[in-house]
């Protein structure tokens, strides 16, 4: 027996091997099975991926995502400087708000996807773990010298996700960090604020990568174990590994960088046109603007779609998509959906066959698996708006 399509070890470790994050011992003590991911030891599962997945859909799951890069930017003209590298309307982003954006290369290819928050004065960015060192190099190279970029590498990042996440976090009685700052239950989806928990500073945003209501919490490395412990001490909260993080985000239709998004994919084919703000569409001035805006007008030749498969056999990254004899696309991520109880996939297919309901076939392990194009997300988002 051999595992031939594992996603666990696909990210290069540095020459010193995987590094330990602040919660390393905590994960091991709680039975987390550790794998190398993005250059770190990370828990892929605790009790089992399906149980963790379903727990998060019904209660609240705690994810350690401290491998991700947390960056802060400040200086005169910082919003405009960032706009030279991202297609979002950063200048219009109000304090305490965050949005999804993309780091683009000069051809409009996607170098990374990210979240950016206006922290009032400075901008806080969360980038993918596997790409953070390249991102830092790219940002430093292209940002003017008067913009200060700080890598918050002594901060951990937790995500608390699920329909009971708000009820759970409320039990920790977070205090707004300053008078006039929002209370926890004031935060709506894509809003953020500074808090104190028992004297410890936290940056909390109402956001996540599961399609559920929930929070992402930036916390000092020395405080993260106490916070994680306080959260899982609640009956509503269990620790969740990377395995369920992947199946949850897939059901939510959210792309995974390095798989569904790469430098070869552009925002239009990736169906991420919403990340190009209206003003930026009118004015351009972001990397690859000419190509991206032309694709937006003419339509991209390929489009990222959702596929629902018949049967129980999953199709995974690299499987080809067919209509009769013609190969018309490729799967970029896929797996069994624990909530829907059938396999699902994301694929890039020729635009002509991207319409909802189109019947296609996926070739996996020498078999043709019937599939049909379905709207993304596979499962409705349940954000708190």
């Amino acid at each position, binding site marked *: *027996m*051999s*595992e*031939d*399509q*594992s*996603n*666990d070890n696909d990210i290069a470790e540095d020459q010193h091997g995987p590094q330990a994050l602040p919660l390393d011992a905590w994960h091991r003590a709680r039975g987390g099975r550790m794998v190398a991911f993005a250059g770190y030891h990370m828990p*892929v*599962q605790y009790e*089992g*991926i*399906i*149980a963790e*997945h379903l727990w998060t859909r019904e209660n609240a799951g705690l994810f350690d995502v401290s491998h991700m890069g947390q960056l802060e930017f400040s200086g005169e003209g910082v919003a405009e400087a960032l706009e030279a590298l991202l297609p979002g309307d950063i200048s219009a982003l109000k304090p305490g708000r965050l949005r999804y954006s993309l780091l683009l290369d000069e051809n409009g290819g996607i170098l990374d996807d990210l979240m950016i928050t206006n922290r009032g004065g400075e901008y806080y960015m969360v980038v993918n773990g596997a790409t953070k060192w390249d991102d830092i190099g790219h940002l430093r190279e292209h940002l003017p010298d008067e913009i200060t970029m700080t890598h918050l590498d002594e901060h951990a990042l937790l995500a608390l996700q699920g329909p009971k996440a708000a009820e759970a976090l409320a039990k920790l009685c977070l205090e707004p960090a300053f008078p006039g700052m929002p209370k926890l239950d004031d935060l709506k989806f894509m809003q953020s604020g500074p808090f104190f928990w028992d004297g410890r500073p936290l940056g909390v945003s109402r956001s996540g990568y599961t399609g559920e209501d929930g929070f992402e919490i930036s916390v000092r490395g020395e405080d993260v174990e106490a916070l994680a412990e306080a959260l899982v001490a609640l009956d509503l909260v269990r620790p969740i590994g990377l*395995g369920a993080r992947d*199946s949850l985000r897939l059901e939510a239709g959210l792309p995974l960088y390095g798989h569904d998004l790469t430098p070869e994919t552009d925002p239009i084919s990736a169906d991420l046109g919403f990340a190009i703000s209206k003003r930026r569409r009118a004015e351009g001035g972001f990397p690859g603007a000419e190509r991206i805006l032309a694709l937006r007008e003419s339509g991209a030749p390929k489009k990222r779609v959702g596929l629902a498969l018949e*049967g*129980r*056999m*999953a199709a*995974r990254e690299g499987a080809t998509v067919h209509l009769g004899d013609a190969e018309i696309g490729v799967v970029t991520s896929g*797996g*069994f959906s*624990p909530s829907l109880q059938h*396999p699902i996939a994301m694929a890039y297919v020729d635009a002509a066959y991207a319409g909802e309901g189109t019947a296609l076939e996926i070739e996996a*392990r020498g078999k043709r698996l019937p599939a049909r194009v379905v709207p993304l997300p596979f499962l409705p988002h349940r954000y708190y708006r």
Partner: protein
Amino acid sequence: MTRYFTEDHEWIDVEGDVGTVGITDYAQSQLGDITFVEVPAEGTEVAKGDSVSVVDSVKAASDVYTPVSGTVTAANTALADEPELVNSDAEESGWLFRVALSDTSELKSLMDRKAYDAFVAEL
């Protein structure tokens, strides 16, 4: 009846010249939640080392190699509705398929329980 093991984490119970094949409990614990099992059709001619079955977990698809050559005489049809049997009972009711052995001397290269346990302890 004698049970043998492979380094690829299959087991085979041999009775007369028919072997019953599955994956080991260690293997299922590494794979995690199993969502689909593909078993070979009755009558399929297989050669030792061929990939003849697939165990699909939430995480990944894994090939199962036949530890012996011969002809498939049966497959575990219960797995179609209950693939999780391979998680809960990998070395008994979670068996995958049966083979009529064409060359019993192939068994000599396989491990016994003690050797397999020692092999797993080194992993």
